[in-house]
């Protein structure tokens, strides 16, 4: 039994790794093979995996995870500005700080459950956002966003407008204009940036997989199914919940940090509650509680945001050009409700359809289809065909 599970886990893991690394080839036919989109898919994949550790396993719905993204981004930027353009310290500090921040918020919010918990996390995230946008401008640079700058020549210059980069300066690195982020000399933009994020995504996936299958993971799932019973048996669930909250906060911090690594700018709007809503969407769309689902959801939503939003009516017109003129205009007018500037509508509808008909998300859909095929081939082992969900 154990060996069999093990084998299945490894197959899933290796399959996942292979797919992630081959994404540029896989996504090429649908016009999604360019560095920025690939990076975003990997980064939001990490975010969604982490979010799923909390929401998928324990059922606690947080609307505040965007705050940790923001914390991670701001921390990374400050590391670039004060220490070095090498991304390693930035990522390390971001994850640690996001973890600490998550501990604080989690410690308070987890005193309540259900919708009260959701509202508490939402309140914390909105407070973080409002403050970052306005009164914390000296730290966050407000609306304009925090950016890397050239080394300041005059100590009187504000740190927002001139960097010091102590480590790089001590190492005697000469900078021409504003330097770019790097990982020991490896540039973090373009395809190398994607592969860097992809490797981290695979590592995060691995950790999440181990966690899910561990005793800790079992405990979290037990909390989801019946927390009261656990409490009656004398088990304190709170430490487990806080641990799960902090871990998912650190995942979010890592994602925020990677956003800054691949594109060194940090803005407050990353912390808005609607940004938290987005990760909920990703997780639900792909499949709550599954390992692969959240990443899949992240990919689909980022693709929609970038590509579906650019299908303007001109493109629709040429798409429907085989139809007679009147029908063509009608169809592209109808289509305009859902793509181009109407892409939010599609998102909302997709979301409703998934929640109503496929509560297990796309992964459940795949599983159902796989089950139908498995039955046809008279195999009695239906679950082997699809990735095993955590539930």
């Amino acid at each position, binding site marked *: 039994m154990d060996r069999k599970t093990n084998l299945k886990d490894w197959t899933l893991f290796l399959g996942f790794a292979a797919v992630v690394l081959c994404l540029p080839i896989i996504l090429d036919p649908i016009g999604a093979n360019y560095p920025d989109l690939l990076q975003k898919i990997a980064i939001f994949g990490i975010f969604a995996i982490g979010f799923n550790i909390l929401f998928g396993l324990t059922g606690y*719905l947080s609307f505040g995870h965007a705050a940790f993204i923001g914390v991670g981004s701001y921390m990374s930027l400050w590391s670039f500005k004060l220490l070095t353009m090498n991304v390693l310290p930035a990522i390390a500090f971001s994850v640690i700080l996001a973890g600490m921040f998550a501990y604080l918020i989690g410690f308070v919010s987890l005193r309540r459950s259900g919708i009260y918990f959701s509202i508490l996390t939402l309140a914390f995230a909105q*407070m973080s956002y409002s*403050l970052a946008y306005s*009164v914390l401008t000296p730290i966050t640079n407000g609306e304009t966003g925090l950016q890397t700058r050239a080394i300041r020549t005059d100590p009187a210059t504000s740190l927002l407008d001139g960097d010091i980069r102590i480590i790089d300066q001590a190492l005697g690195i000469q900078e021409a204009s504003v330097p770019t982020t790097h990982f020991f000399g490896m540039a973090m933009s373009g395809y190398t940036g994607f592969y860097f994020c992809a490797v981290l995504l695979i590592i995060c996936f691995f950790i999440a997989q181990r966690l899910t299958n561990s005793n800790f993971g079992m405990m979290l799932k037990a909390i989801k199914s019946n927390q009261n019973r656990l409490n009656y048996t004398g088990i304190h669930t709170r430490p487990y919940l806080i641990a799960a909250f902090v871990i998912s906060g650190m995942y979010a911090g890592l994602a925020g940090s990677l956003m800054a690594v691949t594109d060194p700018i940090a803005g407050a709007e990353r912390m808005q509650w609607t940004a938290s809503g987005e990760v909920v969407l990703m997780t639900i769309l792909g499949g709550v509680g599954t390992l692969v689902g959240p990443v899949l959801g992240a990919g689909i939503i980022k693709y929609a945001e970038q590509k579906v939003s650019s299908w303007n009516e001109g493109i629709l017109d040429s798409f429907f050009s085989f139809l007679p003129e009147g029908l063509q205009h009608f169809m592209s007018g109808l289509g305009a409700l859902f793509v181009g500037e109407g892409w939010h*509508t599609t998102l909302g*509808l997709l979301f409703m359809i998934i*929640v109503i008909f496929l509560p297990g998300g796309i992964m459940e859909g795949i599983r159902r289809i796989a089950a139908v095929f498995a039955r046809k081939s008279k195999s009695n082992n239906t679950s082997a065909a699809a990735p095993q969900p955590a539930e």
Partner: protein
Amino acid sequence: MDAIFLQFLNGLDKGGAYALIALGLTLVFGTLGVVNFAHGALFMLGAFCAVMLRKIFNISYERVSETEVDFLGKPLKEQIPYLKGIFGEDLGGFMLDYSVPLSIFLAVIVMGIVGFIMERGLIRHFYKRPHADQILVTFGLAIVVGELIRHYFGANPIPQAAPKAVSGSANIGYLVGLGPNVIYPWWRLVYFAFSVSIIFGVFAFLKFTTFGMVVRAGMQDRETVGLLGINIEQKFTIVFALAAIVAGVAGAMYTPILPPDYNMGMDFLVLSFVVVVVGGMGSLEGAVLAGFLLGILQSFASMQAVQNLLPGISQIIVYLVAVVVLLTLPRGLLGRKGVMED
């Protein structure tokens, strides 16, 4: 003194609006056990009933003007509303002027239908689903409704004028014996009176009618009521429609205060949830109390003296109150045990 009095009045005024918006939300919580993230969208739809009615009243025929020209220098095509043609200059003009209060009637009809369809078509199937699912599906609906409104009305806010008779400011300073600087817009006073009467109306409805009694009993113990042979689910449809109507008329009357746009629902969603949670889930009295409390606190937090002391407080006060209340009073101000605690 003047400043504090005005700020207090402003807080009451805001509080009335908050309570009105939160009322339907908490009613649906308490009876149907459904967390409705589309409640803000209902408020917004109500506001657009007012926009719609004005548009209908303004449906016009064109008359080419002999004297005036348009921006391209061509003869101006004057728009003459049919309304004035049908009802005459006086009555037609009166209807145009009073289109916002008149839109209450439209809002009641439209929102009743919307509420009915929404409950039968969607909400009903989510009674037994986890709260998370309810949140998610109604959130999706809120996005779709907002985008549809944007598609047809554009993204810019569309200001609606209050009737001329109540569009100025009331000099209430004289009434309460304060200085001449104590003035307050008539329409806001109207809205305050309106919200208080709607709140009393809803309470009276639930308190003194048989229907209300059944609903209240259902809020206490749904299963027992069901065992009594009362079709509680049918009652629920009406409760949901009622909540939609309250949100709708609140939105329609709010348009002269806040020019409506498609995102208005989302703007009020978070706020109305905070009000409900602070008041205690499912508690009508709690929602009203929390609405006024938050309105007054928000008003005072915006004063410059307070802001100088605590920079940024006006932005976060609402959330801060939510956090403090939830941590000290687990069920909110007036929440009952056992509601939404799973």
